[in-house]
């Protein structure tokens, strides 16, 4: 371990966990209401970021307007996906639904490549890259105080991600629509029998997932640039969701932060082989979770009957 660097890497890892948590939130939103695990979330995120870039850079709209338009478009995209691709799948076996979202991810990836090309884009900087925040920690190592540097874009995307999760959590907890969505997640037929329009709720959750994905995409694009590989963040979000529990909104934050922290700590190691393991760290955590606690930290354990 490179002890001098540990606090820095731990904090950077935690901050990187913010966007992961936001992506995980999009997955949980859809899973909670419709019981679909959306493998296309990464591509939704990519689409959101690309559309924002298109409005703001290609068409020169002010940033807030570009973001607003992108949010509206992504909500519509979510609605369209639910209506065209997932509704015919109602009542189909799990395998078909998983494959449908996988097919969707391929289609969206292909569309993104076809419409926007594979070149690396300069996404407008929302937060200044210069003047990172410096925090002097009370710890002293080798007679020097340990200073932690927080990049502005990472910090603010972390804050926005956290806010997003809190807002969604409050929405599910306190609004009538949120209650209806929670009810739908318990049992589709029961929800329908008490007069909830479950297809409208599925549509709403897909639209929300699109919006959340776009926010995540914008945050990631401002901190790490915009190209087609943006969608791979979702591969770190899958383990985060399972770690937090598939139905749990607070779980996404905890899962995202743990995954980010694990990646950060591994990257602080001195041995190159351990340092390189940062990229597969989410999946190592995932395997441990699957073996010891498959329902995740805050998920519900299901009892199966024939």
């Amino acid at each position: 371990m490179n002890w001098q660097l540990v606090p820095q890497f731990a904090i950077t890892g935690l901050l990187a966990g913010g966007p992961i948590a936001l992506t995980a939130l999009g997955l949980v939103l859809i899973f909670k209401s419709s019981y679909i695990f959306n493998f296309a979330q990464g591509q939704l995120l990519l689409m959101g970021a690309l559309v924002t870039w298109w409005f703001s850079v290609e068409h020169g709209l002010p940033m807030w307007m570009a973001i607003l338009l992108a949010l509206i478009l992504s909500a519509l995209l979510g609605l369209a996906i639910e209506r065209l691709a997932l509704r015919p799948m109602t009542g189909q076996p799990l395998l078909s639904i998983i494959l449908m979202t996988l097919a969707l991810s391929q289609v969206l990836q292909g569309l993104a490549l076809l419409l926007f090309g594979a070149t690396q884009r300069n996404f407008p900087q929302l937060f200044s890259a210069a003047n990172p925040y410096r925090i002097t920690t009370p710890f002293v190592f080798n007679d020097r105080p340990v200073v932690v540097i927080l990049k502005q874009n990472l910090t603010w995307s972390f804050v926005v991600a956290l806010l997003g999760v809190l807002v969604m959590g409050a929405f599910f907890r306190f609004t009538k629509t949120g209650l209806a969505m929670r009810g739908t997640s318990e049992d589709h037929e029961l929800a329908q029998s008490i007069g909830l329009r479950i297809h409208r709720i599925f549509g709403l959750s897909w639209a929300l997932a699109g919006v959340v994905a776009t926010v995540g995409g914008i945050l990631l694009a401002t901190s790490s640039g915009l190209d087609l590989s943006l969608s791979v963040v979702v591969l770190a979000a899958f383990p985060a969701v399972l770690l937090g529990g598939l139905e749990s909104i607070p779980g996404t934050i905890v899962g995202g932060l743990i995954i980010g922290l694990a990646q950060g700590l591994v990257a602080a190691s001195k041995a190159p082989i351990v340092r390189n393991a940062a990229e597969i760290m989410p999946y190592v955590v995932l395997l441990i979770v699957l073996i010891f606690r498959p329902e995740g930290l805050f998920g519900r354990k299901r009892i199966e009957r024939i």
Partner: protein
Amino acid sequence: MAILRPAGEFDTHYARDMATIRRPWQWWLLFAFILALYTLPFYGSQSLVSLVNRIGITIIAVQGLNLLTGYTGQISLGQAAFMTTGGYISALLVNNLGWSFFAALPVAALGAGIVGLIFGLPSLRVKGFYLVMATLAAQFIIPWFTRNAFPDVLNRAQGLNVQVPVLFGFEFNSPQRYIYLTLTVLIFSTIAAHNVSRSRLGRAFVAIRDNDLAAEVLGVNLFKHKLQAFFLAAVYAGAAGALAAHNIRHLNSETFNLTDSVFYMGMLVVGGLGLDLGPIFGAIIVELLIEGATLFGPFFISLFPSTAAGAVQALRPLFFGITLMLFLIFEPRGLAHRWYLVKAAWRLRPFSH
């Protein structure tokens, strides 16, 4: 699949009743088809031969996935990772230890099978999405291993140059020659897959797929059979990976990637899950689609100038995704199922039901 037999055909003993190929003319037809495939290098163009070669290798990988996903119902996104394993084992045995490819191929298949067993272990505790995640983990951990472990043997991200298989001085160094190898392995793998599907093992797999709890109550050992399914799938993947590696003659951690795993799943659904013909139909249709994407590329470049060189890469997932979605909505049981329906309708003609 209810088997409809033409009127007037009576079986006098059980062996005949169980036979896959029932009539002399079917034997002749099969023989002619196989002969046509083996003589393809003499009359087919080079691109056709290499396409058939590629399809053959893909079919082997998808057949393995069919045993695991189609029959046993365990969803796996790790097939490409097991192909990587098989490819590396075979390449190392041939390159570093000087083995013959024909000795290395079964060892590579077995080695991949053992790795498959390890990643199949979570299948007893978890299923559905969770199992997809566990196999997805294989898809990340195995390529990472080849990139980072034993750098002097595995040569990091650059990967390995793989030697050409040689048999009694005959070098399989072009698709025209390699196709004999592919076809031979393919014939064996098809016979094996068919025999698994109609034996006790295959019926146990189907019981687990249809209802695993009920199967367990009936005395099917879940753990054993799920692991056997993972083992078989990975053995097929290992053989396919070794074949592909010696065909391309280069191998690195990205040769078989997550997209390939997704494509194999898609091929299986397009062809027909849990049917012997499924992998064959699916692999052919999807590979032809990909070829089509290559052909249509220039036309699309003129439509979308912003993509330019990327158009072919863009069309491939687009065509594949749209085809898969249409199949899932309109024909979720796949082409092989439709083929059986057409056959049944033909036999019942003129009474369609």
